[in-house]
């Protein structure tokens, strides 16, 4: 990052300014080094390779890779929704509870022997209604997203418990195999006569769904007016309003989209496990927020990427899995996730437009060496 010498010289003369200002435009490489997602990707790669070498027969197997990608995919999907909310400067604490409600509503319809698409549709509708209610109070009434989604967190969980009669639902009627097939689908498959090399993991429907979400969100963030407006709202909501950006509508949609991602994640997990419990998603919001922030989203709004959301979720899962393999009590997970969220916010604290990591690296490694 070049210094800022231009201010004073603008006053004086023309030729000098261009000389000084010349190197201010960021190159692609500069942007890469300044991005937190890039450093998290490197950390993820190092951690994965290190663990795979250390425990080749447990951690390093292709089955474990398939497992980990399935485990973190629902978090990755929700982290993409959370990223949208966080870019606008909000937060969504209700996604874990929405997962529980969606699973119970879909599970009830399956128990009543409705076809799977009716059940999934009903679950999705319940989730979207929750998102729309939160979105309405945040965007149109102007309440704080923290308060509104905290309320929704309690409401959705409570509804899930009431609707389920505090029972686990698993007698899913005639469409149970289809539901399971959706949740347990894999590709590519290792059949005996397959030409596929065996080091290729059999990736789950969860993973592929996440990839689709990430591609669509990444495209929308970078190439559509909607994406542009999202970042503008997070950067300066008042300015966005004054320039004619439909601020309220976009903020409303952010919460609906976040609830949508939670609903999809819930239905995938429902399909995978073949059962619905009202406790599904409990404390997941914390992991999702941690993943999003680790991936470089700024809780103050105005920054975040789809790629970062996915990579952040992957990093958390690899750490969780590594702890498990190292024989550490799984009850420690919360402490690690909590510590990570604090660390990530610390690292992401903006110092003059760059992340703390980038700033630190710059100090250690002056510009001319890159």
């Amino acid at each position: 990052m070049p210094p800022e010498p231009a201010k004073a010289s603008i006053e004086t003369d023309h030729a000098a300014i261009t000389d000084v200002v010349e190197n201010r435009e960021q190159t692609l490489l500069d942007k890469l080094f300044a991005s937190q997602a890039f450093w998290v990707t490197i950390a993820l790669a190092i951690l994965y390779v290190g663990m795979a070498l250390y425990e080749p027969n447990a951690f390093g197997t292709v089955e474990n890779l398939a497992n980990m990608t399935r485990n973190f995919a629902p978090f990755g999907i929700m982290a993409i929704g959370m990223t949208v909310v966080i870019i606008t400067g909000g937060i969504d604490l209700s996604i874990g509870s929405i997962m529980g409600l969606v699973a119970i509503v879909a599970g009830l319809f399956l128990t009543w022997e409705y076809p799977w698409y009716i059940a999934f549709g009903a679950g999705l509708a319940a989730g979207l209604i929750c998102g729309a209610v939160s979105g309405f109070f945040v965007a149109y009434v102007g309440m704080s997203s923290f308060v509104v989604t905290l309320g929704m967190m309690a409401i959705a969980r409570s509804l899930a418990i009431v609707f389920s009669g505090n029972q686990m639902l698993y007698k899913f009627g005639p469409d149970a195999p289809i539901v399971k097939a959706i949740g347990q689908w894999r590709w590519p498959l290792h059949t005996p006569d397959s030409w596929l090399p065996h080091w290729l993991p059999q990736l789950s429907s969860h993973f592929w769904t996440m990839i689709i979400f990430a591609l669509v969100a990444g495209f929308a963030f970078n190439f559509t007016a909607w994406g542009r407006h999202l970042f503008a709202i997070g950067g300066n909501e008042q300015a966005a309003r004054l320039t004619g950006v439909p601020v309220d509508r976009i903020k409303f949609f952010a919460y609906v989209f976040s609830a949508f991602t939670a609903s999809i994640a819930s239905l995938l997990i429902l399909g995978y496990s073949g059962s619905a419990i009202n406790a599904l998603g409990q404390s997941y919001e914390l992991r999702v927020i941690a993943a999003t922030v680790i991936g470089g989203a700024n809780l103050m709004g105005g920054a975040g990427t789809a790629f970062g959301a996915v990579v952040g979720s992957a990093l958390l899962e690899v750490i969780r899995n590594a702890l498990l393999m190292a024989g550490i009590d799984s009850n420690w997970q919360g402490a690690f996730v909590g510590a990570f969220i604090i660390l990530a916010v610390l690292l992401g604290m903006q110092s003059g437009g760059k992340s703390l990591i980038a700033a630190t690296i710059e100090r250690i490694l002056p510009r001319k060496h890159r």
Partner: protein
Amino acid sequence: MALLDIRNVSKNFGAIRALSEVSFALEPGEVVGLMGDNGAGKSTMVKLIAGNFPPSEGEIAVGGEVCHFHKPIEARGKGIEVVYQDLAIADNLTAAENVFLGREIKKGVWPFRVLDKQAMIERSAALFQELKSETRPRDLVKKMSGGQRQAVAIARTRLSQAKLVLMDEPTAAISVRQVAEVLELIRRLKSQGVTVMLISHRMPDVFAVSDRIIVLRRGAKVADKHTSETSPEEITGLITGAIRAA
């Protein structure tokens, strides 16, 4: 017919009366300076005309038609462009992204209707050149000087064929050379028949371009005089209250 007619407009913010019974009219192609002390109500006047909020009393007519703007885009639809005092810029976006904020150029067909970034960058570059500003379209506004940020805000008003341009202290943070460019731009707008309302604390700038000067004091209009019939001394007196009204 007047382009803009302000009729007995008042604005209250709770107990604060920011404007009280102000009336004036702006003709096409006229440059009017709006002056007044800090807190006199100048920015409030701009925001009323620009549709940020409705007046508490009175009405605003554009081209003879009474308008009730609820949003800034509605005023923009009537050909009113604004340079806000705080510039209304998002720091995390680039100069070009800010210039086109809210009216991005798009290409392709839905659902692949995407931003035409290249077109926006080129158009912004041309606008900055016209303003003789060393502002580069791809740079983040966060890293820009005050003058460059101001250029971004001014460039916005050039995107459409505006009938009325309101400038709330457009020369507050810029160099002597750029002030000259902004004043030149105002003259050019005038020659194209565009009406300009210039708010500035810099007496020489206002006298250099204005046909008429309106002075607000504590929310009330205390003077509305042709520039040729007044002097910086008189205006100063009106602003400070040393002279009651003229």
